[in-house]
């Protein structure tokens, strides 16, 4: 084989690949998948469109929520891609190898065939007529025709183009196939060119090669094959071989089927392994997450099961350690706060006995103050009043410590809120009279029954009313009561200094005072609203404040009608009501004016 031939062959390779690809496409399973896919796809797409939001949302949700699904999905996609690419290259390699092999053996046979053909007599003279040509071509054909049953090729003998078209001359001597349809025109042209070149003494002795399809009957379907063509030297005849690649195609098909089968099995296996492995990892992680959730929900006894000594066991162990130390710390804190609360409670109790003695002694002194000189008499008065204050503080301190240690109990019984409001207004009324303002009651005609602890609610209201009168700047205080099916509410409105931004929360802080300078002259322990808030909470109710500088404030108590029920809304608004806005702004204006004139 000369160099040139190899080059030509090389150049012809892409055509061979195309033929192979064509062959590949014709494979049964491809057709099956191609016919199956569109149907399933359209059905799938239709379903998807129908359930679009639901399904997509569901898939996205599951994808985001499940680590396992993500790992398996990713593994599937990556492994399928890798295996597909690998499979493709492998098939390509095998196809190339098979083709090269087939080509080499075909070439050898063709060269041998050419030698045999050249030994035919009568080749050197140009054919006298069509009959002679036919005779020679037929005998060459019979000479080269494989005799036994294992025919791996077919032979065709052709004529130089000078004779080929002439009347009486045959086009081909070929048996069993359609030579015109089988041999591509480029091959014929190449062979013709070579023959002409040989006549002019420029013989290259090239064997021409082309991929083609072997067409057995005119108009029939072809099968992949390779064709060789060569002019028989010093004659007007050309020799053509066609080697069907049926066997190679079958081999390739088998390889491909195996590869696809193995690929699918491999992908499935990888997915299964990924699924299993992530399950191993994910399950303990899920357990840990669940345990952590329970832990954070307050179940401090929650622990994970430790199995083995691997990373997951380490996770479980450290989780358990964390939970244990958390539990210890919490217990410690609980203990500490219990001790502290107990201390406050004990101190308040212990102080009460000496306090009683002091108080009784002070009373005796106070009653005999007229017999004392002025300084001593005033001192006893101060002693008396400060003991009162001290006692209130002690009571409040005890009350708040009782709330803190959760020992406060609710003695709830049905009561009319309007009735409680009227009863608790006594102290505030007296204070209001002294201050020179009025308390206006806006009570509904019918009773507002609710299951409440009278003592606590009265205490809350007394506190709110006294506060309202004290901070009301001598303007009227309005008390409104309302009820709906679930809740009862009291709102205490004053038109005093009001609350600054954020102070509607701060007022409920312990010992918080709006104005530290003036606070000392006004009574109160600084615990009143804090206790009131705790009392409201004990009922499952709300105590909220609204206020603006210069517009006064509203304190609203909302309680559930049935003790222990939760409330969702209040029958009263928190803030100045609509009708009030105008008057209140007028009041503000007046306040500004009066303030200005005073300044």
């Amino acid at each position, binding site marked *: 084989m000369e160099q040139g031939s190899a080059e030509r062959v090389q150049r012809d390779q892409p055509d061979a690949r195309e033929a192979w690809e064509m062959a590949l496409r014709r494979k049964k399973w491809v057709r099956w998948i191609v016919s199956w896919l569109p149907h399933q796809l359209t059905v799938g797409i239709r379903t998807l469109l129908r359930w679009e939001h639901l399904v997509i949302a569901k898939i996205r949700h599951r994808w985001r929520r499940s680590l396992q699904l993500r790992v398996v999905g990713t593994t599937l996609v990556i492994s399928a891609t890798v295996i597909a690419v690998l499979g493709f290259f492998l098939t390509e390699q095998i196809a190339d190898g098979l083709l090269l092999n087939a080509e080499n053996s075909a070439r050898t046979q063709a060269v041998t065939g050419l030698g045999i053909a050249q030994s035919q007599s009568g080749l050197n003279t140009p054919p006298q007529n069509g009959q002679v040509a036919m005779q020679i071509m037929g005998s060459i054909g019979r000479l080269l025709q494989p005799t036994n049953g294992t025919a791996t090729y077919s032979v065709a003998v052709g004529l130089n183009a000078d004779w080929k078209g002439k009347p009486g001359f045959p086009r081909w001597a070929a048996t069993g196939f359609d030579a015109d349809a089988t041999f591509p025109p480029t091959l014929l042209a190449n062979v013709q060119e070579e023959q002409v070149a040989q006549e002019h003494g420029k013989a290259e002795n090239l064997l021409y090669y082309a991929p083609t399809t072997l067409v057995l009957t005119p108009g029939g379907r072809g099968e992949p094959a390779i064709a060789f063509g060569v002019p028989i030297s010093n004659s007007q005849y050309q020799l053509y071989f066609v080697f069907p690649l049926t066997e190679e195609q079958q081999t390739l098909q088998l390889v491909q089927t195996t590869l696809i089968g193995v690929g699918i099995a491999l992908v499935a296996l990888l997915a299964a392994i990924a699924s299993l492995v992530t399950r191993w990892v994910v399950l303990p992680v899920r357990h840990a997450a669940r345990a952590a959730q329970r832990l954070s929900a307050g179940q401090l006894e929650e622990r994970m099961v430790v199995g083995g000594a691997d990373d997951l066991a380490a996770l479980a162990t450290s989780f358990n350690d964390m939970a244990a130390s958390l539990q210890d710390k919490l217990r410690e804190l609980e203990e500490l706060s219990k001790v502290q609360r107990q201390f406050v409670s004990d101190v308040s*109790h*212990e102080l*009460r*006995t*000496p*306090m*009683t*003695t*002091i*108080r*009784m*002694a002070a*009373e*005796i002194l106070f009653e005999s103050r007229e017999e004392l000189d002025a300084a001593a008499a005033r001192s006893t008065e101060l002693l008396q009043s400060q003991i009162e204050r001290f*006692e209130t503080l002690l009571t409040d301190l*005890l009350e708040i410590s*009782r709330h803190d240690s959760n*020992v406060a*109990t609710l*003695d709830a*019984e*049905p009561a009319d809120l309007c009735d409680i409001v009227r*009863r608790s207004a006594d102290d505030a009324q007296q204070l209001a009279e002294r201050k020179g303002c009025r308390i206006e009651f806006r009570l509904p005609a019918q009773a507002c029954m609710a299951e409440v602890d009278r003592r606590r609610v009265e205490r809350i209201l007394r506190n709110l009313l006294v506060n309202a009168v004290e901070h009301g700047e001598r303007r009227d205080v309005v008390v409104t009561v309302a009820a709906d099916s679930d809740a009862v509410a009291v709102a205490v409105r004053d038109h005093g200094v009001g609350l600054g931004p954020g102070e509607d929360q701060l007022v409920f802080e312990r010992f918080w005072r709006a104005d530290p300078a003036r606070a000392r002259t006004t009574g109160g322990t600084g615990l009143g609203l804090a206790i009131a808030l705790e009392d409201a909470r004990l009922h499952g109710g709300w105590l909220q404040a609204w206020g603006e500088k210069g517009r006064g404030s509203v304190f609203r108590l909302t309680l559930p009608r049935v003790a222990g029920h939760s409330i969702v809304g209040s029958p009263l608004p928190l803030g100045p009501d609509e009708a009030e806005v105008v008057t209140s702004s007028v009041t503000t204006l007046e306040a500004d004016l009066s303030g200005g004139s005073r300044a």
Partner: protein
Amino acid sequence: MKGRVLVVDDDAALAEMLGIVLRGEGFEPTFVADGDKALEAFRDTRPDLVLLDLMLPGSDGIDVCRQIRGESGVPIVMLTAKTDTVDVVLGLESGADDYILKPFKSKELVARIRARLRRTDEPAPEMLQIGDVSIDVAGHSVKRNGETLSLTPLEFDLLVALARKPRQVFTREVLLEQVWGYRHAADTRLVNVHVQRLRAKIEQDPEHPEIVVTVRGVGYKAGPG
């Protein structure tokens, strides 16, 4: 006059102060500091009223209260620093008639003592009947089917107050004023506890009372229906 008061208190200063106040008001106080010696002192002095501190060394106030109540219906007023429901109710259930919360005012204490002593002042001949219970107001005795029931003076007063106006509903506040002598609203637990104790003595079945009946959301009344 009846004015002997036994003060059971371990706090020397408070006891002395109580002595000053009580003497000033014309009572005759005697003192005991130890809970274990309280019963003995009670037997010796036969006081008209016991002022009892709830927290005592030795046997505590509640035990002392039970011991005294075991022998006598003498009025017992507890002094307590604890305001928790459990403590108060426990004290009342052990037999105390009334309690007063530390720190109290002298006047308040004296008013409570006088209220407890007052009821024995003027017995008028009067017979009352509720269900199968008959009450001799002057003779201070209560009988059910001829069998004498032993009531403390306070329980007796409570029963009489209810029985004098049968079928009228008394609120707890009204009872507090009539029986205990409170002018301002006070602890209604006093009434609840004493009604329970009264029922335990006079009712056939205290779980289903027929003589002192609860009117839900309002208060109590005497007699069925």
